[in-house]
């Protein structure tokens, strides 16, 4: 059984291989991102070419500092790439916008709004009326098991609850793309697993395109259709791996662990380079 089909390192054939019925949704081409720092420059991203198809669940995987957030923020429109272009739905990304819902690692809920107000906020911005917002919020509260917390403030919620609210807030917008930056990184293992399952359920039901940043190999295999492994400084695409395990995935299965071993080798190599640079203070740039 072909469980993992590693694609060639160069992106062009990978896009072609996937392109039978799929429609490209997010296209990153020739993207470099350099940060000017005192006494030099950090090449956070280099020569990134990546095509993500509609409805795909893609994980960006790599050790700390390899540029995962930088790439995601560029797709979100928070910071423009130094060179290269990013298009979503054929349109060049210039600003952040509600067509690309973002879920942050730090939740980023508005602490002065209740759970229901947080979820309703994006809808109010859209100009929807109270009468339209109310049922939509209720539906999302029910969907994410938040109904009884609707009038609580974020400070009174657990981390898992907060992240549920953040997901509901983005789902409310019905954005075709969902960008998630290590959303479950701060959660305990059980909560994380239950939110992962919920995310998969929502994704299958809605058919959204999801770009999910993680540094957990396990998490990426559990969730993704495709895992994009980044290298450390400069951040390039090291491997683009299609995961063809049936869902729900069993993290104890042989196939799962085979893939895990393979990814571990890839990520560990980058982790060593990370340690050399950040810990021993050498520079590769």
């Amino acid at each position: 059984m072909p469980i993992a089909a590693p694609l060639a390192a160069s992106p062009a054939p990978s896009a072609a291989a996937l392109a039978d019925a799929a429609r490209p949704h997010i296209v990153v081409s020739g993207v470099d991102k350099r940060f000017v720092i005192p006494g030099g420059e950090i090449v956070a991203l280099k020569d990134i070419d990546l095509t993500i198809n509609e409805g795909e669940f893609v994980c960006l995987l790599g050790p700390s500092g390899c540029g995962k957030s930088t790439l995601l923020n560029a797709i979100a429109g928070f910071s423009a790439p130094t060179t290269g272009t990013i298009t979503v739905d054929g349109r060049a990304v210039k600003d952040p916008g509600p067509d690309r819902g973002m879920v942050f690692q730090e939740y980023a809920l508005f602490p002065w709004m209740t759970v229901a107000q947080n979820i309703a906020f994006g809808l109010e911005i859209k100009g929807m009326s109270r009468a339209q917002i109310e049922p939509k919020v209720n539906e999302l509260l029910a969907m994410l098991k938040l109904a009884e917390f609707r009038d609580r403030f974020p400070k009174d919620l657990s981390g898992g609850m907060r992240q549920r609210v953040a997901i509901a807030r983005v789902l409310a917008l019905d954005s075709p793309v969902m960008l998630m930056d290590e959303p479950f990184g701060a959660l305990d293992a059980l909560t994380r697993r239950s939110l992962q399952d919920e995310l998969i359920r929502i994704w299958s039901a809605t058919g959204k395109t999801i770009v999910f940043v993680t540094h957990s190999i396990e998490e990426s295999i559990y969730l993704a259709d495709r895992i994009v492994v980044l290298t450390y400084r400069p951040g390039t695409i090291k491997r683009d791996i299609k995961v063809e395990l049936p869902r729900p995935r069993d993290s104890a299965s042989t196939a799962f662990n085979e893939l895990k071993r393979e990814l571990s080798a890839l990520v560990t190599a980058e982790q060593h380079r990370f340690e050399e640079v950040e810990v021993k203070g050498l520079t590769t740039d």
Partner: protein
Amino acid sequence: MNISRFKALGEGLLVPVAVLLLWQVACSAGWVNPMVLPSPAAVAARWWSYLAPLEAYDPATESWIAWIFSGELIHDSLASLSRVVMGFAVGAGLALPLGLFMGTSDSIYRYVNPLMQLLRPIPPIAYIPLSILWFGLGNAPAVFLIAIGAFFPVLMNTIAGVRHVDSIYIRAARSLGASRLTIFRRVILPAATPYILSGARIGIGTAFIVVIVAEMIAVNNGLGFRILEAREYFWSDKIIAGMLTIGLIGLAIDLAVSRLNNHLLRWHRGLES
């Protein structure tokens, strides 16, 4: 009422009661000149006569409510309070919008901040001569001085509040599609509220200090005026009665403001109510 509340109250009263007793004993035993330090009983008696209506109740000329509130103490307190309210409204009313502008716009900040830093260390009291030159005597200079006292704490905290808004909230709002105006109204303003309110609290405290000083100089009623007037007659009991009233009103204002803060900031992590 639970027992621990009573216990806390008892503990809190222990030292004041002891001080009061010692004070009374010292006066009754004749250890101190009553002109220098009148006994607590004398102060209480004076406080009562200061509070009580000056004339006997006459239903023909006034309602009984007006009569109850006709005492000198009530008039003075209301006069002082109304000056605090007016001065604070003017000072905070100018500081808040200016602080919001300075906090949101770097260029306004760069132009205006040096002047503010220059003026800020000047204590409101130092404006007294100028305020009398400009406004003469009466309420106007008093309100001016109080406004200055309230202005800077509110300004500085508003700027700090706006500038310290965590950028993650702004990014979240932008990705939800919020316009600049919406971000200002729904994100920056509420996020800055804890700072603004603590500035307001400091501002009210300053206003309360300044009102007493201003009344000693520019007007002929109010608590500050009254205790200075009492000195001319060597009424030390009335001075102390007035001071205690000032303390009680200050305490009441601070409690009220902190109640209001707790309500407005019930979402805030630092506050458990």
